């Protein structure tokens, strides 16, 4: 018999109790996985907006809680364009409209000649040529069952679909593109854009240009990477904080659950632990056995919790209001985080009972009734 066999058999003694402990920790792990996957999806989508196409970085209004609140004077685009090292600056207005069954669809107001800056490749048809024409992202085109030549009504105005595009970013592929001035008119934001995409000359230094912009335009902020998304989206920061809070709660609640289970197990097996010590087992081996049981419980919890997390996140996607905004992304990092949390739960919850068991005096343990 191997030592691990003993650990497994010990856990299987009280199957119901072990199962409920595993379930309790699994729910915490599932929350971490689902929340992590949704946050990854959100970050990737935001990245899709802010790092789209050929842009090296993006400019938005500083001090805003959400990107949709960003409001930049359209003339600033020209000033940015004139900065040294800047190859091209493109102002884009972003609006959110209900389309079909989806309450939140992003409308991209952009000049036809700047579509390339969004990274859009036209799959079918052509770019819009006038204010009554629009283009559909590939995904929304499929969802709506509309293609080139069809009509689409937005805010009681009818538009003709001239093309279907694809960028690879969820917000754009599930969105629409229309002429900038038309969206400005619909949004009543004439002369304003939401973001400015900037493409640099090959020899230009990204950090230098960004620094120059932030120094010259106090109300603007530059976003170079996903780690800077928090500058324009407090939602991500809130999600990050929520994820951390869930992890801490999972450790606390799971830890207490494991401690309770393992303490009961140690109490029930007091005489048995006495026998193990009587036949020569060292304190360390008793400690490892109890910790091993707690770690094994947590490994089961990670497996079940991961499965529950994936199912939970997928079920969430069935809700129409979420479709098109979020796509859960399950990364190795998310699962690693869940595993680390479970491991901490196992150590935190298992250590005290294991320590107590290892400290039992063999003679007292054998006399225990």
């Amino acid at each position, binding site marked *: *018999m191997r030592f691990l066999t003993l650990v497994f058999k010990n856990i299987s003694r009280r199957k119901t109790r072990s199962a409920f402990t595993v379930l309790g920790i699994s729910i915490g792990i599932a929350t971490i996985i689902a929340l992590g996957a949704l946050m990854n999806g959100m970050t990737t989508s935001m990245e899709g907006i802010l790092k789209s196409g050929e842009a090296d970085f993006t400019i938005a209004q500083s001090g805003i809680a959400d990107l949709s609140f960003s409001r930049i004077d359209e003339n600033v685009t020209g000033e940015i364009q004139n900065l040294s090292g800047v190859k091209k600056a493109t102002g884009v207005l972003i609006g959110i409209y209900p389309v079909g069954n989806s309450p939140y669809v992003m409308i991209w107001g952009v000049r036809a000649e700047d579509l390339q800056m969004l990274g859009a490749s036209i799959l079918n048809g052509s770019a819009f040529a006038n204010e009554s024409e629009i283009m559909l992202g590939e995904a929304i085109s499929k969802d709506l069952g509309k293609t080139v030549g069809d009509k689409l009504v937005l805010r009681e105005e009818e538009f003709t679909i001239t093309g279907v595009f694809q960028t690879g970013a969820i917000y754009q592929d599930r969105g629409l593109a229309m002429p900038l001035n038309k969206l400005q008119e619909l949004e009543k934001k004439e002369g304003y854009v939401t973001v400015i995409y900037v493409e640099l000359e090959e020899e230009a230094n990204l950090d230098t240009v960004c620094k120059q912009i932030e120094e010259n335009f106090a109300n603007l902020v530059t976003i170079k990477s996903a780690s800077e998304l928090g500058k324009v989206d407090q939602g991500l920061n809130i999600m990050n904080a929520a994820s951390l809070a869930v992890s801490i709660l999972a450790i606390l609640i799971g830890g207490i659950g494991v401690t309770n289970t393992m303490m009961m197990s140690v109490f029930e097996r007091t005489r048995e632990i006495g026998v193990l010590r009587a*036949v020569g*087992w060292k304190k360390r081996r008793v400690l490892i056995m109890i910790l091993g049981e707690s770690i094994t419980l947590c490994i089961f919890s990670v497996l079940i919790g991961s499965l529950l997390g994936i199912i939970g996140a997928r079920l969430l996607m069935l809700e129409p209001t979420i479709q098109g905004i979020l796509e859960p992304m399950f990364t190795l990092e998310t699962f690693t985080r869940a595993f680390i949390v479970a491991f901490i739960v196992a150590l935190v919850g298992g250590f005290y009972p294991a320590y107590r068991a290892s400290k039992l005096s063999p*003679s007292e343990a054998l006399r225990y009734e």
Partner: protein
Amino acid sequence: MEKLIIKTRDLIKTFEGGLIKALNGVSLEIREGQFVAIMGPSGCGKSTLLYILGGLDRPTSGEVTVDNVDLCNAKNLDSYRATKVGMVFQMHNLIPVLTARENVQIPMMELNLSNTERNKKAANLLNLVSLEKRADFVPTKLSGGERQRVAIARALANDPKILLADEPTGNLDSTSGQEVIQAFQRLNKEGRTIVLVTHDKDVAEHADLICHLKDGKIQAEKEQQRSRFARRYSLDRL
């Protein structure tokens, strides 16, 4: 004459800060290969003495040496318990989820043995207590006598010279008790020293030496004058 394997001198053990005196100056000498029975009424200190000899407890004062190990001053008694002595208790204390074979392997985990070696050794030990056919049974599927014989096989796992048994027949019917005593006799015949705590005169009759303990002291020692032939005869009959 066989050499001394267990020697105690003025052994005192108190509990509750000296309020309870379990042993009150026990001096005892046991030779290698002897079968010793310790008898006495409840609470006279029999189990306490056995626990001290087994390295499960330390005396409050006095001297105790077992197989050249000074149990009063040894820093760590884990390896002593693992290799020098094997213990059998009144309750078999087998792990209920493990089979007889697996239970016997428990003490071997502290030794550097492969899984195959452990399995082989466990099979031999179960054979020694005539339980080879019950090796894959969990304790609930074994009779009381069989469980106690598994406990004996477990006590022998690391091949100790000395077997210490605390009322090993206390919870058994007479037939099962006989089976267990027979196993001890066989092991004694092979040269192992047996120290057995009992309050059963019939069980004690099988010993070479009977020590009567009362109020924490040895009141009397009785050497059993039994010929090797007589012992062998009684074994064969069993």
